[in-house]
C-alpha cells in the first residue's frame, strides 16, 4: 500500500491542497478528496487506473461499514460539486446530482407537490448517490418498492474515467441493458454515480398513522396477512421494538400509515381499526400528525452507533417461523425493526458473547429457512463475515466486477464475497 504522501503528490496534479485532506477515522481510506467539478472526478479515475490507486466513493458518510482499518487509498466526495436539480413537474421526473442530500432534494420537489418515493434513514446527511449505492429504503417500501422501482436513468463515472449513461428520462424505456439495476446497491464498486433520474410521485393529500402494540413479534407478523385481505390505501408498515420503538417498553409496535385523498382515507381508519381489533393486539391508537412525525422519525432515523446491526431477508411466509425460532433467545437490549410485507428484519444487539451466540443461531435459522443476512455494523474484533450467506450466482458477479473494473480501483474488497 502506498503512503499518503506518495498518493497526495500524485493527486496534486488534479486537486488544490484545499481539496485534499486526511480521511476521517471512520473511513477505510487514508485521504479524501473534495473535487469541485465532475471533470476532476474523471481525471482522478484515470490517474487511479494508471497508478493503481484505489478509490472509495463517498456520500454523506452515514452508511460506512465498520471496516476498522485503512486498506484503500482515496475517498471521493461529491459534496462540493455545485449541484442543481433538473425537475420536470409535468412529467413527474427529476434528474438529481448524486452529491445532493436527500432532504434537500425532497424539499425542492415538494414545492410542486411531488416526491421521490423512497424514505431512507438519515435523510439530512445521506446523499442521493449513497442511497442508490446502498439500495436504502424505509417503511414506504410497502407501497412504492425500492430504488429498482423508481430509478429511470443513471450516469456513472466508469473505470476509464468516462461518464456512461444507462436508461432514459422517460417512465418507459427498454433500450440497451438496464445497467441501472447493477449500480443500485453496488456500494460504489462499479464506479462513481454522477446523477440519477427518478420517476416521481405526487405527495398524498393526507397521511394517517395507526400504532398497535403486541406482546410478541409473531403475533404482529400474523396481522400482515389479514391486512392484505382488506382493501386499504396503506403506504407504510413497520414493526419495531427496543431503540426503534418510540413508545418504549417491551412491547412490539406495528405502525401502519394510510395515505391518499382525505375523503378516501377517513373511512379507512375505522376499517383498519376493526381488523386490528380482531388480532391479538393489546391496543391501537390513531396518532396525531405531530405524534406521527415524531414516531416515524424514531422508527426510521435511529441508528445505533455500535454493536452488531444486521439486515436479514427471509422468504416472506417464513417470517413467523423465523420469529418462533429466535424469539426465545431475544434478550433485553436487542432491538428489531421488521418490514413484514417484504420479509426484511433489522436486528441490533450489543457487543458481547451472548450476542455472538445469538447471531450464530440467527444465521443457522436463516440457512434453514432460506434467506440472507448482511451486517451493517460489526464490532471491530468480530469474526463474522459481513455477508455470511452468499448467493450461488457469486462467480458471475465477480466476472461483472472484473469486466467493469478490471484494475480493481473502485472500493475493492468491500462487497459481497470479497468483490
Amino acid at each position: 500500500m502506498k503512503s499518503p504522501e506518495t498518493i497526495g503528490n500524485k493527486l496534486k496534479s488534479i486537486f488544490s491542497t484545499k481539496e485534499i485532506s486526511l480521511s476521517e477515522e471512520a473511513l477505510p481510506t487514508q485521504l479524501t478528496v473534495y473535487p469541485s467539478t465532475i471533470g476532476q472526478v474523471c481525471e482522478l479515475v484515470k490517474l487511479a487506473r494508471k497508478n493503481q490507486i484505489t478509490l472509495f466513493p463517498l456520500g454523506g458518510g452515514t452508511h460506512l461499514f465498520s471496516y476498522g482499518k485503512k486498506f484503500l487509498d482515496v475517498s471521493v466526495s461529491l459534496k462540493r460539486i455545485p449541484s442543481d436539480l433538473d425537475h420536470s413537474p409535468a412529467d413527474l421526473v427529476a434528474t438529481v446530482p448524486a452529491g445532493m442530500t436527500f432532504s434537500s432534494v425532497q424539499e425542492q420537489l415538494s414545492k410542486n407537490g411531488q416526491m421521490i418515493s423512497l424514505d431512507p434513514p438519515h435523510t439530512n446527511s445521506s446523499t442521493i448517490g449513497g442511497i442508490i449505492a446502498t439500495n436504502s429504503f424505509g417503511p414506504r417500501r410497502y407501497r412504492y418498492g425500492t430504488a429498482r422501482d423508481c430509478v429511470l436513468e443513471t450516469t456513472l463515472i466508469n473505470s476509464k474515467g468516462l461518464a456512461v449513461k444507462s436508461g432514459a428520462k422517460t417512465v418507459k424505456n427498454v433500450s440497451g441493458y438496464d445497467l441501472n439495476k447493477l449500480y443500485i446497491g453496488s456500494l460504489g464498486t462499479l464506479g462513481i454515480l454522477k446523477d440519477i433520474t427518478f420517476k416521481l410521485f405526487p405527495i398524498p393529500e393526507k397521511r394517517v398513522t395507526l400504532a398497535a402494540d403486541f406482546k410478541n413479534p409473531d403475533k404482529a407478523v400474523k396481522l400482515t396477512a389479514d391486512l392484505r385481505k382488506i382493501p386499504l390505501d396503506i403506504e407504510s408498515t413497520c414493526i419495531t421494538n427496543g431503540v426503534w420503538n418510540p413508545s418504549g417498553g417491551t412491547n412490539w409496535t406495528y405502525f401502519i400509515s394510510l395515505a391518499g385523498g382525505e375523503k378516501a382515507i377517513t373511512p379507512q381508519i375505522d376499517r383498519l381499526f376493526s381488523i386490528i381489533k380482531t388480532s391479538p393486539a393489546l391496543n391501537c391508537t390513531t396518532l396525531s400528525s405531530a405524534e406521527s412525525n415524531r414516531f416515524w422519525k424514531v422508527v426510521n432515523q435511529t441508528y445505533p452507533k455500535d454493536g452488531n446491526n444486521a439486515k436479514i431477508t427471509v422468504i416472506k411466509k417464513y417470517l413467523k417461523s423465523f420469529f418462533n425460532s429466535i424469539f426465545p433467545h431475544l434478550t433485553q437490549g436487542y432491538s428489531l425493526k421488521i418490514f413484514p410485507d417484504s420479509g426484511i428484519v433489522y436486528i441490533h444487539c450489543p457487543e458481547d458473547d451472548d450476542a455472538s451466540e445469538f447471531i450464530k443461531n440467527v444465521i443457522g435459522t436463516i440457512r434453514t429457512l432460506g434467506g440472507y443476512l448482511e451486517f451493517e455494523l460489526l464490532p471491530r474484533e468480530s469474526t463474522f463475515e459481513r455477508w455470511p450467506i452468499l448467493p450461488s450466482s457469486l462467480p458471475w458477479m465477480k466476472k461483472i466486477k472484473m469486466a467493469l473494473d478490471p484494475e480493481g480501483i473502485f472500493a475493492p474488497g468491500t462487497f459481497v464475497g470479497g468483490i
Partner: protein
Amino acid sequence: MKKTFSLIEQLQQLLGKDRVISNPDELIVFECDALTLHKNIPEGVVLPESTEEVSAITKLCSEHKTPFLARASGTGLSGGATPAKGGVIIQLSRMNQILEIDYEDEIAVVQPGVINLHLTEAVSSRNYHFAPDPSSEKACTIGGNVAENAGGPHTLKYGVTTNHVLGMKTVSPTGEIVEIGGRCEDSPGYDLTGLFTGSEGTLGIITEVTVKLTRNPESIKTLLVVFNSVEDASISVSNIIAEGIIPAAMELIDQLAISAVEQHLNVGYPTDATAVLLIEIDGVATSLDKEMKRIQQICLSNRAMIAQIARTDKEREDLWRGRKETVGALGKITPAYYTNDGVVPRSKLPEILADTIRIGNKYGLRIGNICHAGDGNIHPLILYNPDDKNEVENAIKVSEEIIKKCIELGGSITGEHGVGTEKSEYLGMMFSEEDQEQMKKIRDVFNPDYLLNPDKIFPTQSKRNKINLKKTKKLKGWL
C-alpha cells in the same frame, strides 16, 4: 469409415427426431417474429422440455460454434426471435407449466413458455393477477415478457415486467445452469435479475421464472372519453399526469384504429370520434369517485364530447377487448403494418402525436395511432403494402423519423418492444460509444463468443439484417 455427426444429428440423438425440426418447409414458420420486415431461416429448431435439455442443447451449439437463440411465441415486434445469423432456434413452447403458486408468499414459479394470460387465469379465483398485461397477453409468454421487459396498459400504475420478477433459473451459452435472485425480496450482490430482465435473450436462456402476484383492486372504474381531435385527447393526458393523478391505465386510440376495431369487433367505440381515451382507475372504492370526477373535468375542459363510465363488467371488458385487439383489427384492413414503439416525456405527447401524423402524410402512408398515453409510449401503426417496394421503404423511413423526433423531445427509441434487429442501428441515437461499450462488456461476461442471439441490440455496422421485400406471409392464430 469414421463419420462425424452434424449438429442437427446430435440434437436428434439428444431429443429424438420428433423434437428437432430441420425440414426447410417447416423452418419457414421460424424465419421471423411479428416484425415481418426482418427474416432469416434457421438451420434447425429444437423443442426442449426441461432446463437440463436446454443446457445440453446450448452446450452442443457452443461446441459446434453455431449461433442459437431462445424463441417463445414469436410475438416480439423488434426481430428479437429472428435468427439473424441462422443457427438453431430453441423453441420453448413445451416448457409451459406453472410449477408453483404460493398465495401466502404472493408468488408463482413458472416455466418460460407459460402464456401470460394463463397465469392470471390460474390465480384469478383467488383474486390475484400477474400485473404485466401486454396487449398480446393471450399469446406471448412470460419468458418472452422477461426477455423484453414487456409492459402493457396497466404498466402506468403497476410497473413493467422487471417490477414483478424476483428470480430466475437461466442457462448460459456453455450450458451452465445459473440461479439468480430468488424468492426473497432482496438478495446480496449485484441485481442480476434486474440485469437479465429486458436483455432480449442475449445473456442467457431463462428456463424458470419466479414472479410476484398482484392482488386485484377492490374497485375499478373505466372511462371512455371521446374527442374531436387527437390533440385535445393528448393534452388531456398530459394535464392529468401533470396534476399528479396516475390512473391504472390511460390509452389513446385514434380514428383509423377505432374504425378498424368497430368494423371487426363492434365493442362500442364511437366511429365518428377522432380520438378516444380509455382511462381506468382502480383501488379502494372510497378513493375513486373524487379522482374520476377530476379526470372527467380535465377532459371536458379540453373539449371532450363524451366522458362516460362503463356501467357493467361487460361494457368494461368490451372496451378493453377493443383496445387489446386494435392491432389485430388493423391487420384486417391492411396487408401489412409496421409498429413503432417510441417514447417521449409525458408532457410531449401532444407534440409527438402531431408529428406522427405529419410524418405519415409526408410519405403518403396511413397511420393508426394507439398508445400507452399515460407513459408517453406511442405505437403508431404504419400501414403499407408489402408488395410495393416503395411503400416498404417509406414505412421504414416514417418509423425512423418518428424515432428521431422522440429522441429530439428527450425520449427513447423503444418503450417495451425492445431493440432487437429492428432498432440496433438506432441505439447510437441514445447511447454514446462508451455507453454501449459498458453494456457490451456485460454481454461478453455472459455471452463471450456471442453465439447466443447474435446481432441484436447493438449496431452491426454491416447491416446484416437486410430488409426482406418478399411478400409477407399472413400471421396465424394469435393476431
